[in-house]
């Protein structure tokens, strides 16, 4: 328990005493929000999950690999 408390205090004191780190953490959090909550959700769906029937992904990709005149 003492060790856990010391680790927690180590991080707590570290974060509290940050100066430049506060700006950097703000940038990191804004960036992560944009990447995961905006880009991933609205612009980067999983193409195969969206277009293939569940369990039929192999068939779906196999169809894509066909050519007319091999």
């Amino acid at each position: 328990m003492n060790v856990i408390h010391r680790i927690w205090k180590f991080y707590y004191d570290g974060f509290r005493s940050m100066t430049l780190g506060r700006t950097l953490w703000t940038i990191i959090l804004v960036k992560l929000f944009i990447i995961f909550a905006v880009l991933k959700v609205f612009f980067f769906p999983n193409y195969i999950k969206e277009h293939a029937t569940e369990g039929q992904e192999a068939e779906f990709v196999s169809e894509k690999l066909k050519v007319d005149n091999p």
Partner: protein
Amino acid sequence: MINLLNTDLAMVDWARAQFALTAIYHWLFVPLTLGLAVVMGIMETLYYRTGSEFWKQTAKFWQRLFGINFAMGVATGIILEFEFGTNWSNYSYLVGDIFGAPLAIEGIVAFFMESTFVAVMFFGWNKVSKGFHLASTWLTGLGATLSAWWILVANSWMQHPVGQAFNPETVRNEMTSFAEVALSPVAVDKFIHTVLSAWVLGAVFVVGVSSWYLLKRRHTEFATKSLRVGAIFGLVSSALIMLSGHHSAYTVAQTQPMKLAAMEALYKGGNDQPLTIIAGINPFEQPDYEATDEPPLKLAVPYALSFLATNDMNGYVPGIRDILDGYTKADGTIELPLSEKIERGRCAINALQEYRKAKAEGAGEETLNELKEKVQENMPFFGYGYVKDRAQVVPYIPVCFYAFRVMVGGGCLFILLFLLSLWKPKPWTYWFAVLCIPVSYIVSEAGWLVAEFGRQPWTIQDMLPTWVGVSELGSSAVMLTFFLFLILFTTLLTVEINIMCKTIKKGPKL
């Protein structure tokens, strides 16, 4: 039936452009992280050994710049994985089993090693022992370097797909040997060469920033000593990178001869090949490699290409036409002509479809095994089944040719910079050092241009061309996210440069 040969080419181009934009942007952060990791480790080791407050503050200053760069670069690489799933779904599905392991390891290593030791490095001054702090600083660098290893393993597998077998039932390349994937000669070479190039960039950055202080006559002792550490580190890294560069060229010659031929604009190969220093190649047009034997105004070092590619001054190096027409390798094996590779590729594609049809119709084990064998036997040529003409398998020569020369020329320029900074530091060399900071980024990105343009048209070497790996999306969707990224990345980069410059102007707390 869907015909991938009619895929909207604009979509392929936009998806490639978007991937390139994201990777180029991501790579603006990675090399400085890897390079500064060693520099701050050296500075703190000097503090550990001398107990001098000067070295402590010096180490803290470079750690601060490392921290800014690290924070700005965090998660920029994850966007590449999003692009795999959306823009490159066929490719992503095919390689999922191979990529899963190294990328998962990278994520776990990066998270646990870096989040633990970065915290100790920044929060632990005066809270943990000097030895533990020093170990944390070095382990932060080691964690970042190990992360790079796994990403480079994934990239190398695309350039040289080993340790896998294609399973027609799952339509996936499945890993058969983790060791072969993780320790393939291409992965080892790429890791060493890439990390060393990052060290050189880090050294140029340290020398450049220190030179700026010397020009401004500020923090003179700090700048002089940092400059010496940076220049020595840069010289050692440069010496090592020459060795790794030679070995990389040898490996490329064995595994991706077309890339080497494009880098050298070698249209017709042979024995005793010279290494081109420069030639008159139009940067905006693919040269006529079918009708000419060599580019005009070629200035070359005799025998050097043969030595680079084969470790033998008289060794045989195939040119573009030789590779297209087929040739005999040094070990006596035959490199098949393109026409035969196309035949075998089509055979693999047909066999895959036959296998799946037979499986659906409940064919017997013997029939299925025969078809599976046929697929696997011809799988190394699978991608050629989608090729219609010779031009499709030749990378864009001007980019490969000039990017290679920018990379090598830049490397030589930095050696000169390190030597001048050590032995003849003068105000003009300080200016030279400051100017070399942006140049080092161009040189570093040029290295990646050689690696990635040189392997075109393959997303997986010989197995999957770009136009088959791509999703059937409209190009407008990809264009939109391309410009979104451009705005996002430019904003983030501007913010980083701004914070970095402010921190440098503030200087160390001495």
